[in-house]
């Protein structure tokens, strides 16, 4: 048995010596490399804010900043959960289904206009538990049945959607519990409670990612699963836990969404998956896994929210708003992702 004595090249060394470095990558390297690139999303956010504020000073009004925070609350909570999955190099497409199940459980157990239940805040716990359970099942499907997360969670998406259509009977059920609605309507220090909840979710996600073994293992699996496995990471357990954790965040988002709208119907999650994935990717977390994190995602969510708000403030025609959003996604990813390291672009 021979032992390698030659020291392994560090990843950054390989990167610098790759002859095929694409042009924008070379510019980025010239300007300071990865450090610069990791700050790109923040720079985009600042430039965006400055431009919009110049065009319409109403943008920096306190009232508008509160509104911005409010409309970022649900996407932020969702994107927190999704970040862990994408960091692992997997994907969770069950965002909309899980959110809709959590919102459905919430309205059906709290005071509502469809049945006689009134379990108050137990309904909130049940909703979050339902979200977590959905994620747990996704994790089991991926690891035990060995089905790729793309397919497994696609299935869970429709299972969740079907479940809430069935339970809600196709109609919108109103949420009548005043204390739960206060999540959206009551303000604490000038901000709706939902914003504080979302901020709490962000803090929790930060702690999990940077200060727990789970967080480090998730990152390790995303970086290189084989290496992680060889160094003793229980990949199966980490994957299942990560999916359950994502479901937990989706459950919280479901509660917030139902509280904001004062009702729930099966399609309450429509379009949320796209928004969440966009926010994670625009923030600079690589879809290939192992790079980025929840702080990036916070910036990503803010970019997406500020952009939507800004386009209305600037009076951009609804007919071209989507196009601008598409351009924005491509630009942000081009700037922030370390594509030099990607050997193959799929």
């Amino acid at each position, binding site marked *: 048995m021979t032992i390698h004595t030659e020291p392994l090249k560090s990843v950054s060394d390989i990167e610098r010596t790759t002859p095929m470095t694409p042009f924008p990558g070379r510019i980025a390297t010239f300007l300071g490399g990865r450090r610069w690139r990791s700050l790109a999303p923040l720079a985009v956010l600042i430039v965006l804010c400055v431009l919009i504020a110049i065009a319409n000073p109403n943008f920096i009004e306190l009232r508008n900043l509160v509104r911005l925070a409010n409309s970022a609350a649900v996407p932020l909570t969702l994107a927190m959960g999704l970040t862990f999955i994408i960091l692992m190099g997997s994907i969770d497409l069950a965002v909309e289904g899980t959110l809709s199940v959590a919102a459905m459980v919430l309205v059906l157990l709290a005071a509502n206009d469809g049945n006689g239940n009134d379990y108050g805040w137990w309904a909130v716990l049940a909703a979050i538990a339902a979200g977590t359970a959905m994620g747990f099942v996704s994790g089991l499907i991926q690891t035990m049945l060995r089905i790729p997360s793309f397919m497994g969670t696609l299935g869970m998406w429709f299972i969740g959607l079907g479940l809430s259509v069935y339970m809600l009977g196709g109609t919108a059920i109103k949420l009548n519990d005043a204390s739960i609605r206060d999540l959206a309507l009551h303000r604490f220090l000038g901000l709706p409670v939902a914003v504080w909840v979302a901020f709490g979710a962000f803090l929790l996600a930060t702690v999990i990612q940077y200060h727990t073994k789970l967080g480090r293992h998730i990152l390790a699996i995303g970086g290189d699963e084989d290496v992680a496995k060889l160094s003793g990471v229980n990949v199966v357990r980490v994957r299942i836990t990560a999916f359950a954790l994502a479901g937990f965040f989706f459950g919280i988002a479901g509660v917030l969404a139902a509280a904001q709208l004062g009702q729930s119907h099966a399609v309450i999650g429509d379009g949320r998956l796209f928004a969440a994935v966009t926010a994670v990717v625009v923030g600079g977390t690589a879809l290939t896994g192992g790079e980025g994190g929840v702080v990036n995602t916070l910036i990503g969510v803010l970019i997406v929210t500020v952009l939507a708000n800004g386009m*209305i403030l600037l009076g951009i025609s609804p007919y071209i708003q989507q196009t601008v959003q598409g351009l924005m996604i491509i630009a942000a990813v081009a700037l922030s992702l370390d594509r030099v390291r990607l050997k193959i672009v799929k």
Partner: protein
Amino acid sequence: MNDTKNFAVNRRTLMMGATAGVAALAMPSVLRAQDKPTLVTSIRSLSNPYHAVWKTGAEAYAKWAGLEHVTLVSEGNSEKGIADIKAMLAKTGGNMVLNSDPNDTPDARPIVEACAKAGAYVVTQWNKPGDLHPKDFNPNYVSHIEFDGIDSGKTIAEILFKTIGGKGGIVALGGLISTTAAIERKKGLDAALAANPDIKLLDFQVANWKSTEAFDLMGNLLTRFGDDIKGIWAANDDMGSGALEALRAENLAGKVPIVGVDGIKTAVDAVRTGEFACTVTSDPFWQGGMGLAIGYNAKIGKFDPTKEPPEHREFYGKAVLISHDNVEEYYKTNVDAKPEIDWNDLWGRVTGAIRT
């Protein structure tokens, strides 16, 4: 001898009786199959309140008429919608009455052609190509029903303008840009604006028929226009209720009136509390039941479609306006209880032939 004779007679009687018995058992089932067609409802999905109410209307009519009823759901997939209808035609041997809200405009043609070929009777609602006419498929294609979107958009706009005192700024939330209903309702709004020069349309934005999108959008519009917004025109109630929650988060609910279309329960509740000024509904309960009633009556020969005037073959139904004046009455008869509709009054809600 007697015993044998008796036995022979008995045997013959027995055999004849058995034959008669079999025939008697068989004939009514043949007759029943001819008499009682299956009622079939084909709609887009059951995950929206509109089609859910449509289905209850269809079931109410089927129960009233004592007929079997089947609901087909296309889930927004045209191919599935058409394939399911063809499967039902095969299963019933064409002995059915179909009330269909085709998923997309071009779908109406294959649906009608398949029904005509199988001898089934069909009524379509909302979507059909302009060059497809019931009279070209006599007698199987009985009627096509729509609701005048221009009229709805204009009616609610006028009520909104009156509520805010005839002057000031409003914002409008439109539906999915490519849908006919969205385009027509906006035309109605434009017509009302043209007639009221003191009303200013501050901005027209699109929330794709969804309350969640309208919620975020309304927050942004409040930033841009603030107190200049005196009223909100929404192309449907779901978006209107999203806008209402955005107002509520800023303590503005009830201060800025909203109008919408569809008559969903949330909107009816909001009309009661004064947060909505009005909503209009095409009454999906009526659409679900009456579409089947018209087809069934043609099928059993109560009327001959070929002899009906054009405004009975392609017509606009009458939309029901729900405003402060009639909301309590409406609530009592439509929300608290299942609505009572005279299913024999086939043409009671015809308001005229469809514009071409």
